[in-house]
């Protein structure tokens, strides 16, 4: 753990408001990006970020200092985002995506022109189930088994949601590129 994180952690554990704000300021941007990927829109992402940091401060004493502080905060934020999504809507609605095909190859040169903001907005447009599984598997690095346990679905559901998510993304990317 970084020296500055140690000092911030110590201050936060004592309830020092300045240290809490400094911790928030340090991690708000990367954590907000995560929230944006899980949320439908910006207000929802801000709600996730707010609830996520509240949980971070309340549960900070549970942090074991075995890994980086940022990694622990990230896991808390993702868990809060998942909880909010499950509370607010049905996770896996029936969405028909036509002409699904995993075999379609992707032109990386075209993708390279897309920036993080655009990609995040594209992910936001995915149906909730696709978006969650895609984020968890591709970005966070969860396995299908772990996703299935966390979302209380079967491994096959996780796999199919990922497959559909990727197909949808390809379709959306092509549309973006074509115009």
């Amino acid at each position: 753990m970084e020296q500055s994180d140690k000092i911030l952690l110590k201050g936060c554990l004592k309830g020092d408001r300045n240290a809490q704000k400094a911790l928030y300021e340090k991690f708000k941007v990367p954590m907000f990006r995560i929230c944006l990927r899980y949320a439908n829109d910006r207000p929802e992402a801000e709600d996730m970020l707010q609830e996520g940091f509240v949980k971070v401060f309340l549960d900070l004493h549970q942090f074991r200092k075995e890994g980086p502080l940022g990694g622990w905060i990230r896991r808390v934020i993702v868990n809060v985002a998942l909880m909010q999504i499950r509370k607010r809507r049905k996770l896996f609605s029936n969405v028909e995506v036509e002409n699904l095909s995993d075999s379609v190859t992707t032109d990386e040169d075209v993708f390279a022109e897309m920036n993080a903001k655009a990609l995040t907005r594209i992910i936001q447009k995915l149906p909730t189930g696709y978006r969650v599984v895609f984020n968890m598997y591709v970005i966070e690095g969860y396995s299908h088994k772990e996703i299935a346990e966390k979302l209380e679905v079967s491994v096959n559901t996780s796999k199919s949601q990922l497959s559909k998510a990727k197909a949808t993304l390809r379709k959306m990317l092509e549309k973006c590129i074509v115009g």
Partner: protein
Amino acid sequence: MDKNLPKDPLEEFFKKSLEGQNELPSDNGWDIPSLNVWDRVEADIQPTAIVRPINYWKWATVVASMVLLFFTYKWSTQNEQIEELVIEINENNEQLETVKGLLKNKEKEIESLVVEQNIDNIYNQQSIENEEVVQRDDVRVSHRATHFSEKNKNEIGGKNNNGSLKNPTLNTGNMVNQKVENIIVENLDKANFDNSKEELIDKKIIQEINELPKRNFVVESSVDNEKLKAEWGRVATFNLKKERLNSKLFVGVYGSRNFGMRSIVADDSSISQIRKNEIKNIREKESWTTGGGVKLGFQINKNWSIETGLQYTKSEITARHLIQKQYNAASEIQNSSGDFENEFAFLLVTPMGDVESDVTLSRSAMSTAIPDQLVYIPVESNQKISFLGIPILAKYRFGNETFRLGLKGGVLANFILDADVEISTVDTPFPNLRHRKHRISNKTELENLKTTTINWLAGVEAEVKLNDKMYFLFEPSFSKNISPIFEKNNVKTYPLMANVKVGVNYLF
């Protein structure tokens, strides 16, 4: 989490583009949350931010316990005194009843003698009727007095109805009662039946009783209608109270232990809470301090006394401060040895006020430059501050000769004598930054340090008698500054101090 890398180019592309924890926002700021998010977070975590507020209930409980203890003690000692008094009165009444019985016998003897004498007189002086009466009275009186004197020499207690001798002392080992009895008997020798003389005798009895050492007597009397009974039908109530020695002046020496606290007051309670939290964050460690002094007291009456003296307090506090500052590389100054220095001002919290101070962090010219950023610098200050106090107190004490409890209250003026403050960093925010200990050994260097403070003081005390002149004393007390020692943005800081004195009082 799964460590397997995605093989799909789409997955790789998204992962590469979106992963990472870069803390800097993008140029167009799309990934910066609204400012009000922190306000909402802060509002939600508010309860956890309150770190150990001053527990007024705890102090209220202590005060309530002391008050309860005081009244319980007062009630129990009063009951004991009443019981002792009732026993004494009963003993005295019993003795008086015995004396009354004894004297009734004597009265009968006297009457019979008077009758005999009168008969003699009648035989001897039959012709002068008027003088007879006068002489009869004179004879009776003188005869009676003589009779008493003679009888007292031989049989002080007189005889019972059956003719046996009564115990002449009539005492139960109580020396005071013996003396009282002797005074009464002596005065009876001079007994006269003239009303004015009776009063004189009463006064003399009371006067002599009052002259007895170490005792206070309250003598109440009631007079029966009958003349003879008037003398012996008196009910003398002896209110025997043990009185403390008549010392008026006392001096004392004591050692003391003190513990400092703070009270933060603001019109807006939320501001006050923030300041409290700041203080809590600053003062991690505060130790008991030592002191001592001498005192001089004057006893106004049995219960009330006034007291003053000199009270020396040496305060030794280790306080930790967490300084939050923006590190600015541009403000670094190269010193004579070539190192780069950066100075950070902070508020040093001391028992005599909060004063501005600073720490200097330096790095070698060869080390990597520190980027501009918010840093937290833990600083420790070892404060040794000594001050002299002059208390002016009023005391109310009660109890018996061996153990007394008391309440005291008044003002305490503290004058700072010297201050020695050493400031050092506990940890530096970056490994290549170092700090040299900084020492302020002169109180004048600590600007804004209050040189004089006036405090309210209240407390309780217990005294245990060691011998006729010496008393062991135990005095817990509590003091609070009348005016704030630090005031900023309408937030006032008042230092409080709990104090326990242990020592001896010497009575003159």
